[in-house]
C-alpha cells in the first residue's frame, strides 16, 4: 500500500470511528469496560501498572489498535534502542512495552511489524543487551538494522528554519503506519528526550543537527514526519545523567505512560510529568510556534487512568 492509499484508508477509518462515536452503545463489549463513551481521545495518560498492562488499557481508551493499523498493513515501531545497556537502566524503551505493541499490531491485522533504531552505541550490542531483540523475536516482529547509510534515503523538508534536507530510513518511508515509542529521560542538551527527540533515530546524519542548532532541527524534522501514534514509556524515568545514565540511582520508578496521536502534546505532557516546564525546553517551544501539534493541553481531549 502506498502512502496515498494509506491516507485514503486513514480518512475512511477516521469516518468510521466518527460514526461509531455517535453510537456509544455499539462500542460496549468491543472495548473493555473502561472504554469511554466519548472516544477517541487525543491523549491518554495512565499510571500504576506494568508497561505492557498500562499500554493495553491506555490503547483501549484510545480506541484500540484497529484505529491505527488496518488489515495487511506494514507497521514500523521505533523505540529508543540507543544504548548498550541492560533494561534495568532504562536508557532504552522497555522491552515488555515493545513486544506488547507488536502483538497488538498483529492482533489488529498487521502484515509485518518492523523495529529498528539508528543506535548511538554499537548497534548489535544495543539490540541484544537492551532486551529488545528478544522482545521483537518473541512477538514475531522483524528487527531491522539501522546502522548503514544505504538504508537511508534523501528527503527534503519545506517551510523549515534550519533543516532542509535529511536522510530517512527506508522503513519509515515505506511503511503504512509509524509508531513512535520513546522513553522519557533526562538529556544533557535537550533537557528531556521524548517523542520529537526520538526521531533523531530515524535519520542518518545526526551530527548535522548538533552542528546547526539542535533544538531547531528537532522541531524542523518533527514538522516533516509525524508518527501515527506516540507511546511514551515513563515507567522507570532517568532524572539525571541522561540520556545514557551512569547508575540506577539516576532512575525513579514512575510507572506511567502517555499515549497520543499528537507528538507535541505527548512531549508537553511528558515534560510536566518529568517536572520541567515545557516552555523551558526549546524544541517544544519552537514546535509549538511551528504548530507541529497542540501545545496547550487544555484544548485536548485527555483521558487520565490509574491502574
Amino acid at each position: 500500500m502506498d502512502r496515498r492509499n494509506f491516507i485514503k484508508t486513514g480518512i475512511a477509518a477516521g469516518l468510521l470511528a466518527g460514526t461509531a462515536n455517535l453510537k456509544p452503545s455499539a462500542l460496549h463489549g468491543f472495548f473493555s469496560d473502561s472504554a469511554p463513551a466519548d472516544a477517541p481521545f487525543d491523549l491518554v495518560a495512565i499510571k500504576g501498572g506494568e508497561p505492557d498492562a498500562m499500554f493495553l488499557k491506555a490503547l483501549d481508551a484510545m480506541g484500540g489498535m484497529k484505529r491505527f493499523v488496518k488489515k495487511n498493513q506494514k507497521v514500523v515501531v521505533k523505540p529508543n534502542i540507543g544504548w548498550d545497556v541492560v533494561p534495568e537502566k532504562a536508557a532504552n524503551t522497555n522491552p515488555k512495552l515493545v513486544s506488547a505493541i507488536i502483538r497488538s499490531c498483529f492482533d489488529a491485522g498487521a502484515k509485518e511489524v518492523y523495529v529498528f533504531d539508528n543506535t548511538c552505541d554499537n548497534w548489535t550490542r544495543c539490540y541484544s543487551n537492551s532486551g529488545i531483540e528478544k522482545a521483537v523475536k518473541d512477538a514475531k516482529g522483524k528487527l531491522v538494522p539501522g546502522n548503514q547509510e544505504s538504508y537511508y534515503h534523501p528527503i527534503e523538508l519545506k517551510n523549515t528554519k534550519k533543516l532542509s534536507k535529511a536522510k530517512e530510513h527506508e522503513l519509515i518511508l515505506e511503511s503504512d503506519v509509524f509508531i513512535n515509542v520513546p522513553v522519557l529521560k533526562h538529556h544533557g542538551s535537550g533537557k528531556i528526550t521524548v517523542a520529537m527527540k526520538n526521531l533523531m533515530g530515524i535519520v542518518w546524519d545526526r551530527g548535522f543537527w548538533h552542528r546547526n542548532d539542535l533544538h531547531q532541527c528537532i522541531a524542523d524534522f518533527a514538522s516533516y514526519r509525524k508518527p501515527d501514534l506516540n507511546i511514551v514509556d515513563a515507567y522507570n524515568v532517568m532524572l539525571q545523567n541522561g540520556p545514557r545514565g551512569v547508575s540506577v540511582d539516576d532512575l525513579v520508578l514512575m510507572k506511567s505512560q502517555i499515549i497520543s496521536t499528537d507528538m507535541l502534546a505527548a512531549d508537553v505532557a511528558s515534560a510536566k510529568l518529568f517536572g520541567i516546564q515545557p516552555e523551558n525546553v526549546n524544541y517544544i517551544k519552537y514546535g509549538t510556534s511551528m504548530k507541529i501539534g497542540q501545545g496547550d493541553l487544555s484544548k485536548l481531549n485527555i483521558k487520565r487512568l490509574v491502574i
Partner: protein
Amino acid sequence: MSFKLVKFARVLISLLFLIGISALFLDIKGYFYPSVSKSVLFFQFTPSLIDFILTLSFSAVGFLIVLILTFLFGRVYCSFLCPLGTFQDLFIFVKNKISRKKKYSYSKPFNKTRYFFLSFTLLFLLFNSFFFILLLDPYSAFGRIANNLFRPLIIFANNIVSSTLSGFDIYSVYPYDYKGFNPLTFGLALLTLLIVGFMSFKWGRLWCNSVCPVGTLLGLLSKFSLFRYSIRTEDCKNCGLCEWSCKANCIDSKDMTIDMSRCVGCFNCMTVCSSGGVVLRSYFGKEIRGYKPRKINASKRKFLSELFAFSASAVSLGFFQKIPLITKDSTIPENRKVPVAPPGALSINRFNMSCTGCNLCVAACPTQVLQPAFLEYGIMNMFQPRMDYIRSFCNFDCTICTDICPTGALQPLSLEKKKLLQLGVAKLIKDNCIVFTQETECGACSEHCPTKAVNMVPYKKIAAPEIKEEYCIGCGACEKACPTKPFKAIYVLGNYTHKTAVKNLSKPKQPVMKETDDFPF
C-alpha cells in the same frame, strides 16, 4: 608406506590450523571470541613465548611444546602449525597445478640473509624494540594479511547478500558497517602478501629459510634434533626425486645430504621416494650419513658482531623511534601528542615491547575502534593497535581485546576494572566547540559519555560541556560524537601509563511525583 599417513596428517593438521586461525580473523559476527582463540593460537611460537615471559603462566607453554617438538623432529612448527607456512603451501599447491616447472633443486643456504634477520630481530629485542618481530613474525604477518585483506572481502560479500535480501524485505542478514579501511596498513599487508606469495610461488619455502626469524631460530635448534631426515645410501637409487620434491631446497641428492636447519618437515621427500631411501633416523643411531656438521665460519662471526654494533648504536640513539611523551595541556587543536593504547596495555612503553601486531584484537573489536597504528607509536611500532577515536569509540561494557590477546600484550581485565580504567583524558577545545562559538545547544559529547565525566553545565542561556577529568576513562565516546569539522572540539589525550578513574557516584534523585499524586496536567 606409513610416511604417507604422516604426510596426510601433516596436510590435515596444517589446514585445520590455517582454517581455525583464519576463522578468528574473518569472523565478522563475533561467534568465536574470545573463548576459542586462546586454544587455536596455543602453539603460535612468538605470541606464546612473549605471553610466557610476561605472565609466566602455564597456559602459555605452547612455545615450549614447539621447542620440544623441534628437538625431537626438527621444524615441524613450520609445516604443521604455522599459518603463514601453510598459506605458502597453498601457493605452492596452486603452482604445481598450473606450472610446468615443478622440480625444485638444491641450493646453498642464504646464511648471511637468514642470520641477518634472526640476529637483528634478537638484537632489537635486546634494545627494547619489536620492529623486526612486527615485520617478520609469521603468525602476526599472516594475521595482518587476514585482517587487512581477507576480512574486507568477507564483509563485502556479507553486505552484498544483506543488501540483496533487504530488497526482498528480508533483514535477517545484518550488514557490517566497515570502518576499518586504512590505506597504509592495507598497503603494508598487501606488500607482505605479494612478497611471501611471490617467493613461495617461485622458490618454495625460501621465505621460511631466509627471512623468517622463527624459521631460522628453529632451524638452529633442528641441527641438534633427536630424529632427523636422512638418505640411506644403501637404499638410494640416485633418482633425484626427493630433491625435486623438496620445496625447502635442502636436499642435495648427489651428496645425499639433507640440511636439517632448513628442512620444514613436510614429509614430501619420504612419500615420493620409491625405494625407502629417505628415512628418519635417531641422532644416536649408527648411520648418520645424511648429516654433516658445518664448520664454524669466521666471517659469519665477524658479520654478526658488526651487525650487533650497528644495530645497538642505531637503536640506542633512538634513531628510528619516536617515543610519545606526556605533554602539558595545550590549546593547539587536537594536539594528539600521546596516542591511546588499548585497554590492558598498562603503559604504552610496555605495550610497544610486547605486541607482535597480529591484529587479532583489531579483527575482534566490536566497535572497530582498534586500528593498526602507522606512525602513531613511531615507525618502529607499526601495526600495533591503537584507539582510533575518529572512526569509533571503546564500548563501555566490553573486554574482548584483553580476553583474546595471544601475547599477553593486553592483560586480561575484569569488566569492573575496565570500566574505571583510564586510557587517556578528554580535552576540550572551547574555540572549536559549537556551544561556545555558535551559542546553540549541542551536547553530543556529554550524551555519549558513559561516566558523565563530560557534563553539561549552564552557560549563558544554554548548556556547555565541562570535563571532570577524574571521572574520565578516555573511551573516546565524546570525541567520536563531537560533530565539529575538521577538528574536534573534544579529543582524548592518551595516558602514557594507564590509570584508574574515580567512580562517579551521583546522588539519587528524589521523585517529583508521588504515586498518589494526580497527573500534573
